[in-house]
């Protein structure tokens, strides 16, 4: 094979005509293997459109949610800046001058969402406070040297906008030698130089100070080594009068961590103020509100799918970003697997598209379970018309889609009302969050539940579960298992199943077995695995090999074999060796020196 060698592990393949650089349009992969009459192209375009809209909606949402936090942060920064500006002889100010203004930003454990927050924070600061905003991550700063290098290169990168070539050379030179002294002299240089140039640039409000402060954001404060942090804080507090620094700590856990990382002598050099970001659960609620509990987007999730996504959120990571990823995958899967998703768009457009549906697509409509249920309820002439005549089918589909639309707009309205009514009741019988209520309503008739109050029966007809609506399949994505499989996989369970129950994958009758049993014709690795489960911490290879041979020989006796017994034994031994090395690769066993010709088990229990 071209990709195996004993001397190297990386193989680069460049197609000959690299100059032409043709790349296949993404849409082609969407349509591969699909029936042409099922509007693949249109479906992919619709997917992309809806996804773009959803994405920009979430980004906008995030910005709005952060608005309060950012404005209080900016206020704090401006206040501390003015402290730098005043050259007061006031004793209090003198003391303060030795303290680095620090904002501790409590962001919560959903670290994956922090990036976005910091990105927009940087932007906001650059627009409102100072052009010099630098973000550092712990992984880039193993020691103080790298810390200062990164700081310097980013800082100098901040001021080179147009004459970047010159700047880059400068940066490259500076990189080798960096100290706080060089930083402050650079700062003096730059602030004096830019003064006359100021009108040229669009630096609007930042020009209100002669010397804008330098804001340093430490994204993941907890991950920094204490030594690096302490050194940096001590050094920079010495230079504060010539290098006006403001720190922002990104904190995922709790503010106590500051005092755990920094001894009193160091933390007393900081003037800390706490800022709390919005809780991620509230964030989720708003995202759901804007993306799913609305008729703005035609795409909907079924109860199971929504449950899985919220469960991943609540039990695994609290990450909005992951939630959005799940939403994206649902959207993609829906458009990929449901031919009629072509009608999952805004109502006027969907009505237009109905007119162009192919025969094949009309058949697809007729095959929808919800549509079949609907047809059965109609008078017999109408049934015939719907099942045989494409034109009357299309007309009916238009009106049904319209109904579905009306259903949704009523649904969400009433849902919100009901939530308003019940969310303040003691013990929250229908849940505290609107998503809980939504899930219940998606699942079944809400009025059938015990918690439901009879006085609210008026709402009944509006909160019918979506499955009762004809054509709901067009806009609802319900393949919950695919979602779970691809987002929240359990590789260890898969291994376990493959080793314990090969019949699950290999549908051969010979492999059929009851739970906890394995037939002796099973793949070698399954047999070796089963045998090793019977051992405790150490396994004697000879015993194991003999046991393996016993089983395998018994299995082979069934087929007449022409090879000699000695050769057969050798082959069986080779098969055993292969199975053992494979189990080692998979991490079930490892070699041990505790006893000769033994291996150690690495798992505990049934697997």
């Amino acid at each position, binding site marked *: 094979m071209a990709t195996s060698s004993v001397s190297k592990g990386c193989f680069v393949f460049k197609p000959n005509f690299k100059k032409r650089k043709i790349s296949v349009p993404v849409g082609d992969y969407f349509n591969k293997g699909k029936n042409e009459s099922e509007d693949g192209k249109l479906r992919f375009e619709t997917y992309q459109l809806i996804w773009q809209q959803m994405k920009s909606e979430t980004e906008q949402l995030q910005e709005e949610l952060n608005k309060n936090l950012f404005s209080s942060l900016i206020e704090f920064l401006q206040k501390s800046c003015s402290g730098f500006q005043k050259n007061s002889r006031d004793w209090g100010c003198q003391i303060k001058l030795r303290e680095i203004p620090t904002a501790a930003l409590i962001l919560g454990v959903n670290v994956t969402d922090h990036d976005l927050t910091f990105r927009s924070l940087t932007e906001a600061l650059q627009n409102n406070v100072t052009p010099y905003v630098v973000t550092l991550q712990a992984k880039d700063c193993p020691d103080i040297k790298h810390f200062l290098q990164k700081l310097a290169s980013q800082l100098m990168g901040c001021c080179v906008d147009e004459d970047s070539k010159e700047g880059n050379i400068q940066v490259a030179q500076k990189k080798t030698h960096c100290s706080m002294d060089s930083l402050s002299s650079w700062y003096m240089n730059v602030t004096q130089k830019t003064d006359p140039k100021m009108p040229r640039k669009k630096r609007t409000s930042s020009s209100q100070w002669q010397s804008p402060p330098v804001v340093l954001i430490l994204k993941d404060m907890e991950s920094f080594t204490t030594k690096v942090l302490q050194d940096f804080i001590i050094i920079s507090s010495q230079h504060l009068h010539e290098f006006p620094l403001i720190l922002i700590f990104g904190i995922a856990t709790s503010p106590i961590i500051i005092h755990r990382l920094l001894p009193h002598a160091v933390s007393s050099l900081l003037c800390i103020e706490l800022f709390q970001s919005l809780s991620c659960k509230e964030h989720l609620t708003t995202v759901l509100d804007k993306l799913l509990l609305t008729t703005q987007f035609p795409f909907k999730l079924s109860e199971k799918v929504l449950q899985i996504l919220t469960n991943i959120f609540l039990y695994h990571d609290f990450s909005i970003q992951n939630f959005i990823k799940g939403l994206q995958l649902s959207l993609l899967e829906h458009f990929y697997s449901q031919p009629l998703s072509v009608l999952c768009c805004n109502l006027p457009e969907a009505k237009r598209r109905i007119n162009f549906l192919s025969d094949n697509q009309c058949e697809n409509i007729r095959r929808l379970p919800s549509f079949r249920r609907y047809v059965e309820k109609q008078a017999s002439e109408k049934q015939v018309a719907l099942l045989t005549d494409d034109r009357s089918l299309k007309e009916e589909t238009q009106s049904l889609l319209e109904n579905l639309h009306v259903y949704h707009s009523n649904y969400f309205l009433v849902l919100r009302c009901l939530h308003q009514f019940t969310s303040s009741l003691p013990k929250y019988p229908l849940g505290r969050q609107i998503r809980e209520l939504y899930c219940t309503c998606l699942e079944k008739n809400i009025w059938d539940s015990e918690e439901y109050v009879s006085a609210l029966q008026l709402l009944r007809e509006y909160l019918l579960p979506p499955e009762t609506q004809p054509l709901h399949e067009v806009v609802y994505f319900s393949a919950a298992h695919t979602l779970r499989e691809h987002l929240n996989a359990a*590789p260890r369970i898969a291994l376990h199943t493959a080793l314990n129950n090969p019949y699950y994958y290999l549908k051969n009758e010979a492999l059929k077995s009851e739970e906890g049993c394995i037939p002796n014709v099973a793949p070698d690795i399954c047999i070796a695995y089963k045998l090793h489960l019977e051992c405790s911490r150490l396994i004697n290879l000879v015993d194991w090999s003999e046991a393996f041979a016993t089983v395998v020989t018994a299995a082979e006796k069934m087929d007449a074999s022409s090879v000699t017994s000695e050769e057969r034994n050798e082959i069986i031994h080779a098969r055993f060796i292969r199975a053992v090395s494979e189990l080692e690769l998979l991490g079930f066993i490892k070699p041990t020196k505790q006893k000769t010709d033994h291996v150690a088990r690495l798992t505990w229990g049934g697997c």
Partner: protein
Amino acid sequence: MMSKLELKEDKIMEVQFVGDDDVLNHILDREGESLKNGSAADGGNKVYSFQNRKHSEKMAKLASELANTPRKNVSFGLKNDPEIMINIPQCSKEHSASDKVQLKKSDKSELLSAAPSGLRKRLIGPRSQSDSESEYSASNSEDDDGVAQECEEDTDEVTMSQKSPSQNKAMSAPVCKETPSKKMKRDKTSDLVEEYFEAHSSSKVLTSDRTLQKLKRAKLDQQTLRNLLGKVSPSFSAELKQLNQQYEQLFHKWMLQLRLGFNIVLYGLGSKRDLLERFRTSVLQDSIHVVINGFFPGISVKSILNSVTEEVLDHMGTFRSALDQLDWIVNKFKEDSSLELFLLIHNLDSQMLRGDKSQQIIGQLSSLRNIYLIASIDHLNAPLMWDHAKQSLYNWLWYETTTYSPYTEETSYENSLLVKQSGSLPLSSLIHVLRSLTPNARGIFRLLIKYQLDNQDNPSYIGFSFQDFYQQCREAFLVNSDLTLRAQLTEFRDHKLLRTKKGTDGVEYLLIPVDSGTLREFLEKEEEES
């Protein structure tokens, strides 16, 4: 609380904010469900349950059971053994309340039967038996026997004293006013904990003393192994083919998802190398792509980055560190959005790549919009490599591709227990390196080889002392000062052809870390040529 439980009996699946235990159960349950098949549904419980103290004879017993009833299903010990029954966590949520009460009863009786005296017997029993068989002994190659003995006795006592209060608790259960389910859970956990410590307390494990040597089964080398395995006719080929075809239908979907910003990770039993190779040949032919064999022992993140910078981006400069190199690549790909690169990594979880830094760098590469990553993992703990931050960099979509294919290539580099180092690889590299040296240097090395071969049967031989070696080299007119000899030795050391060791007398000893068979072969080859 009870009434609520009863009410919701049939739909306990709903989200409730509860204690850690329940969350754990919940997660396990979830994962069990992820396989559509009913039989795998309780996989979670099994996978994470505790292991029992087991006896070494069991394997043989099981094997004979399996062998004697060919093509018939033999139920494994798990079901018949009353001791083990205690261990299977019976936390399945489907049990109704009445079931639970029953369970509790049986559970209690089992607890009583597992009283300390019985436990002691169990510990001692097999040993007295094994005396007659004379083949069983505890693992004690390294630690002092007497001390270990004492240790064991101590721990026995500890388990005893731990055991008794818990037993009391179990007896007094009816008086206790806790709800049954809670009560049961507590007993269960304490029981599990004891089982765990019981199995781990003693440093000795009873296994038979037989060694492969006694069996007269020599270690096979890689080539023989391959030849032998080649004679095995593969079973279930029709089913395997069907499995593979199922996965091949996903190729276009994978391409779509890769291009839309996801990365793909394949998991499941069996080598996924052939599958990925077919993916490569069928859909990646027209794109720039890099295949990375994670199982290759010499692989490193640096070599991955190098092949990207040097071969993909045609950059000839060097970089001060991997992070600099990464920055450079990231900038390159951000600047030129028409640039596209597919990375195929076999065994992203291999020994060489599983480190935190490597994963961070590969994750950062994969998070680029125009770098697409498709990788396979095999190790059962592979997902532990990734924290939330890394997972979000990778943006994985998981695909289960169980193939049952043998890991031929993946294990061929491995220093397996049963596979002899073939020696062909060191030999060829030995020849290769020595050809590039000066005649004098070759002479020096040959001298060392000969001396080492002369002493190969001497068990106390620790190497050629530097002074003696220098003397001999001088006599053979190979060097004129110890400085030149030292310079020469440094070069050997760089090629890993030499190891030096300080003896107890402070003298430096030189040793070639290659087995004598290879060395002899090398000398023969050399003589043939000259």
